[in-house]
């Protein structure tokens, strides 16, 4: 086996190894803890809801899949089965923002009470106009209480 052939074999082996590692990394990767992520936007409840009520499509394009810190007052702590969601509503209306938490942050969400003034960071999934509730509903996933 001459030297050139050996070099090629080693090069191909390294490429296969690197490629395999890349594929393995992509498919075993988990989402970073939201608490460690830099936010794309910081908003308050009334202004945020108002953007969606003004133009839901435009707001969805702007905010979908962005990491956003939302500041406001807890309107409802919604416990459901093994999970808990936090809801912040617009003042004097029915439109709301609902936050679903990452598993490691559920305990801190359970500590919250109606009326608490807090900031929550999460990945915005955008809004829908609910025919059931006849109002806008803005959803978040992978949330954490912002410290």
């Amino acid at each position, binding site marked *: 086996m001459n030297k050139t052939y050996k070099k090629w074999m080693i090069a191909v082996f390294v490429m296969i190894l690197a490629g395999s590692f890349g594929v393995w990394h992509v498919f075993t990767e988990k989402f970073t803890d939201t608490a460690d992520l830099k936010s794309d936007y910081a908003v308050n409840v009334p202004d945020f809801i108002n953007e969606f009520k003004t133009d839901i499509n435009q707001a969805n394009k702007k905010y979908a899949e962005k990491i956003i810190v939302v500041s406001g007052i807890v309107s409802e702590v919604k416990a459901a089965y093994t999970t808990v*969601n936090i809801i912040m509503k617009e003042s004097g209306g029915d439109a709301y923002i609902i936050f679903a938490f990452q598993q490691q942050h559920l305990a801190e969400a359970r500590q919250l009470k109606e009326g608490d003034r807090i900031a929550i960071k999460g990945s915005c999934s955008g809004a829908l106009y609910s025919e*059931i*509730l006849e109002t806008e509903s803005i959803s*978040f996933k992978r949330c954490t209480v912002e410290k």
Partner: protein
Amino acid sequence: MKKTILSAALVLSTGLIFAQKKTTTSAIISFDATTSLDKLPKAENKTVIASLDTRTGKVAFEATVKNFAFSNPRIQEHFNNAGWMDSDQFPTAVFKGEITNLTAVNFAKDGTYSAVVKGELTMHGVTKPVVTTAAVTISGKTINAVADFNVKVADYGIEGPAIGAGKVSKDPKISVTAEF
């Protein structure tokens, strides 16, 4: 006058107490498209809006597609992109239906009842009929409903190489839990 006001207040409060349309902002829908080759394609949406009218048996669900949360970022991206759910164009999945054997469910008595739910599921811009059985548990003023069914993704115009390669199920299991 006082009697009229009192009577009106009594009627109003009675109506509220026995409100027939129940709603929740936090129903949970799980989506499991795992196969023996890939355990990653499964997600949960914990912010589903749902309603149940105990008088007519009408049920409805609305889910923001982007709020189905996967554990893996790449699978999350694939799920939402144009080749799959195309959530930019079809941001909402909706089910509208009714309990067809409503007399078999006694909402006023604690217990677990088997409810047949028939309706239409709209996702990816396509509407198809769905029939499933839900376990409805009454406990005091709380109504819990649980149902599982499978959907053929091809029926909704969702196809892709991962399905053909056996990495994503052709008929993922949808699990629904709602507490009213």
